[in-house]
């Protein structure tokens, strides 16, 4: 228990500092975990309580993602979502997979690394668009839809991971069945749900917490993993009052997710046999492959490679979902600890570099434009920030 308190206190300090400097906080939570855990001082070890809290963090992260997925919205923007999404998926999965396989990881490990390599951090991308005041850029919309597409793909990955040895078709039918039941419940119970959410006592928050936990606990009986259950719950609840659910689930997500990140750092072990060459190659490629997919998307969607640079700048950071993939996979026991360390390092490096590219992508673009224009025009346009 003292371990969690110490870890949370350190995270609080880090959160204060990083907010002040406006850099993403996730890599620092992981670094704090590394410093306190196995690799570092050994002050904190993971125990039953921390594992429960971490589990909650993951569950609420996925519930939140489900709430944000509104199928009808995606259908309305199909072409924009699909084109950029498919470019991003193919390029990054292929580069990630080939690189990992060539570096000596097994087939399944390479797939895990490729998935974590592909999926950018939605939280970081969105925060960067807001904080760097880029919402009006036309590329921003592309980035936002890209994140939605990645979330969808993540669900497919999670389903495939968790199917394990089950018959895939039966497994998918089961998931669809659960989703249908939850949809019907949300549809016919809509007024009841909204009447609960509208109250200003403890009921809305208690209900949200209990609903998520109850749904997750049903996974045992149905042979469907918790992750899929809570995403399905989120998608179903999104048809009622998603904003209210977000508001009531946010405190749990925010706190438990910090525990999740820091204990991910605690449990990974950099001290024994880390291959720094592998890590360096993966990190470098993680940045380059998003550059390639970004530029291609920019050319295809906006007809401009410079637009691609902007997309790249905001999608370099890998974060919460990459770690979620590793954590969910490692529980299957199929992967070596090396996968965890590699992805941890990739998240830390890409998210820190990503925060700088997100901040300076506009200047970079302007710089390139100036170079191109210098010969054509002697005037230097003054462009304020």
């Amino acid at each position, binding site marked *: 228990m003292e371990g969690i308190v110490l870890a949370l206190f350190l995270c609080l300090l880090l959160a204060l500092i990083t907010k002040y400097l406006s850099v993403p906080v996730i890599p620092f939570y992981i670094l704090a975990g590394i410093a306190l855990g196995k690799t570092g001082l050994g002050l904190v070890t993971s125990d039953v309580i921390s594992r429960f809290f971490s589990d909650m963090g993951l569950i609420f992260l996925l519930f939140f993602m489900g709430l*944000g*997925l*509104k199928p009808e*919205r995606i259908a309305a923007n199909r072409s924009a979502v699909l084109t950029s999404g498919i470019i991003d998926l193919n390029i990054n999965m292929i580069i990630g997979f080939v690189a990992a396989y060539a570096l000596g990881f097994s087939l399944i490990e390479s797939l895990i690394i490729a998935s974590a390599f592909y999926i950018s951090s*939605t939280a970081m991308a*969105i925060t960067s*668009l*807001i904080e760097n*005041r880029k*919402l*009006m*850029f036309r590329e921003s*919309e592309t980035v*936002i*839809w890209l*994140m*939605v597409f990645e979330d969808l793909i993540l669900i497919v990955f999670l389903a495939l991971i968790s199917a394990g040895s089950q018959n895939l078709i039966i497994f998918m039918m089961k998931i669809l069945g659960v989703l249908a039941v939850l949809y019907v419940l949300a549809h016919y119970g809509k007024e009841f749900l909204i009447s609960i959410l509208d109250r200003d006592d403890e009921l809305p928050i208690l209900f949200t917490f209990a609903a998520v936990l109850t749904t997750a606990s049903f996974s045992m009986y149905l042979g469907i993993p918790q992750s899929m259950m809570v995403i399905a719950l989120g998608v179903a609840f999104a048809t009622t009052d998603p904003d209210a659910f*977000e508001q009531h689930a946010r405190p749990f997500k925010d706190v438990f997710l910090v525990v999740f990140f820091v204990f991910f750092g605690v449990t990974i072990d950099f001290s024994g046999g880390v291959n720094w060459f592998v890590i360096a190659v993966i990190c470098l490629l993680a940045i380059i492959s998003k550059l390639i997919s970004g530029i291609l998307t920019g050319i295809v969607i906006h007809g401009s490679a410079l637009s691609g640079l902007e997309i790249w700048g905001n999608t370099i950071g890998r974060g919460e979902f990459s770690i979620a993939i590793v954590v969910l996979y490692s529980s299957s026991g199929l992967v070596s600890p090396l996968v965890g360390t590699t992805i941890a390092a990739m998240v830390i490096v890409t998210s820190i570099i990503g925060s700088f590219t997100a901040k300076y992508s*506009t200047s970079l673009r*302007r710089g390139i434009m100036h170079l191109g224009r210098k010969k054509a025009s002697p005037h230097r346009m003054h*462009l*304020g*920030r």
Partner: protein
Amino acid sequence: MSAMSLRSLNLPGVGTKYEFETDKGDTVAIFFTKTGTIQMYTLQKGCNTPSAAEMTPVEARRLGNILTGAIIEADQESVEIAFSALADLRVTIHSFLIPRAIAGKTIEDLQIRAKTGATVIAVCRHDKNIINPAPTFVFETGDAALVIGESDQIRMFEREIMVE
């Protein structure tokens, strides 16, 4: 072009976007973000770098008041509300800083209602609000009084009471 075409769009994870193009080709976009702040972007025609301002909801409402034409002075502002259902009843709420001249006097002494028809509905003193002050309420310098009435009554208040 006739009325401006306002485009509203829900951006997953971000919030709601409103965008419109002016007759002269400039673009204005407003984002109500999920973090609770409001960002306003303006993009001049022919330029490709927008400029942005981030506002709290209070600041955004203030900007809204300016844009709808309500008068705003440094510390004194006024809002006019029209109730179309009540035969176009127009009510103005105006804040006034109490000058030294009327400090120490009560609402009764000043005969505010009799002289102007307007009503003092709240007084802000040292960041505390006194709602519906009694007639015996004594003004102090530095108080900010919120006065409600029709625009004529507010003007009367300004002329009759504030200069006393």
